[in-house]
């Protein structure tokens, strides 16, 4: 079995591997030598479990996410579908205006589906969205959590807002277009979420 590392982050590495004859992606949380094994093992198992639970719940909510094939808690490995497509980050700026609006709308609708089920992604940036077969697939729920709080939903969208500002600053309507999609699908009070976002910007705590 050959394994190639696609990306090495601070906490985990993303590898392409094979599972039951399929080409799959594995997220492997690596043991940290600086931590006590007691802390390290508990954290790795906890985070692996929480992340796979969120991915499953997101699917139930109707959001496109990689299919889960296997979860190894002690090993800290999530084996999932290899979604081959393009990162939204890499294509968004070059899209024609109307297509970009449409794509942002889908992104907003998907986030609303997550939030309707109180799923907070925790790191909604355009590098964590893959456009494949006309669908936007959300990846990396590693910083995610469940929350009914407006605050958490506001922070979640604020992360995206900042990602748009830093990476897609020459396309200033992206966030607005995304929020239009969000508003259509979100079952709670979208204006209250918007108010929260403004409050978070004012607070200036989040970068």
């Amino acid at each position, binding site marked *: 079995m050959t394994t190639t590392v696609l990306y090495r*982050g*601070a*906490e985990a590495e993303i590898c392409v591997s094979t599972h039951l004859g399929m080409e799959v992606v594995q997220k492997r949380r690596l043991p*940290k*030598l*600086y*931590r*006590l094994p*007691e*802390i390290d093992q*508990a*954290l790795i198992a906890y985070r692996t479990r929480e992340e796979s639970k969120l991915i499953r719940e997101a699917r139930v909510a109707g959001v496109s996410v990689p299919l889960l094939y296997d979860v190894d808690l002690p090993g800290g490995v999530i084996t999932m579908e290899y979604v081959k497509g393009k990162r939204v980050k890499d294509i968004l700026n070059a899209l024609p205006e109307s297509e970009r609006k449409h794509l942002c709308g889908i992104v907003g609708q998907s986030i609303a589906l997550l939030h309707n089920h109180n799923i907070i992604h*925790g*790191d909604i940036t355009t590098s964590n969205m893959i456009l494949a077969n006309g669908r936007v697939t959300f990846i990396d729920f590693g*910083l995610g959590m469940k929350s009914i709080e407006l605050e958490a939903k506001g922070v979640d969208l604020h992360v995206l807002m900042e990602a748009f500002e830093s990476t897609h600053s020459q396309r200033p309507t992206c966030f607005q277009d995304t929020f239009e999609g969000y508003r259509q699908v979100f079952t709670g009070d979208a204006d209250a979420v918007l108010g929260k976002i403004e409050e978070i910007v004012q607070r*200036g705590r989040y*970068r």
Partner: protein
Amino acid sequence: MICLGIEGTAHTIGAGCVRDTHGHCEVLSNCMNTYSPAHGGIHPREAANHHATHLAELIHQAVQKADIPYTDIDLVAFSQGPGLGPCLRTAATAARALSLSLSVPLIGVNHCVAHLEIGRGTIPVCTDPVLLYVSGANTQVIAFAEGKYRVFGETLDIGIGNCLDKFGRMLDLGFPCGPKIESFAKQGDRYLPLPYSIKGMDMAFSGLLTAAEAYYRKKESLANICYSLQETTFAMLTEVTERAMAHTEKTQVLLGGGVASNTRLRDMVSTMAKARGASLFVPTKDLCVDNGAMIAWLGLIMHASGTRMPLEQSSINQRFRTDMVEVTWR
């Protein structure tokens, strides 16, 4: 060029002189005096009174130790914030008076950025680090990105030093409690689970402190509680530092602040750095804690890069954020 810096953000009042030798920071003197209350934490007014009592003598000492006449001082720098209002005002008032009487320019600097710059200034190979700044009040992971010093992770409630001090105060350990907790922790060998609280890139210590206090009331061994407290909080600090290094793709890590003296924290960060192929730097102890030399050095490089501060703009800022600083010298 020689700059005299005055530090006074919290419990330490300090004065130090530095000289710029081809971009390297030469510390000529670094004198300080720390207010330590008989009981409880820092009382801001008491601390300011302490500073006012000792500052004139410290400035004199700093100039004498530097072995220079007052007329050789080209610039006076002071800690403009963040910190306790009364302490900041005492240091700022002294700095203004000194600058006027010597007829040299005055410059106010950000205390957190000074902790980073003194590392870069005194350790030549430390050029572009991620700073883990751990002190009583501040716990921040700072790095230079897109033209500014940005905070990539920080505490959401209390500083790590404050967390250790509060725990120690319950035991009446006396300020500062960190070194005593460190020596208790060395006797510990059983880990007592404590909440590991990282939210994205930020950390929270207050819940964990409550849990540690609960263990103490349940008569768990003090050594094991101190051991668990250190292991948990330091692992959180190291994790956030590593995340910031991965995010910014930097290969150097610098420690600063009083808690940087802790050998277990150094070990952990060093292990993390080694695993990433990165290097760890720790300034000498007198430059890690709050000190006048680091204020002087930041003031000096800001001045050299063209920053000027008219007297009217020299008011203190208790909430001076790291990312508010306009970086003109990099």
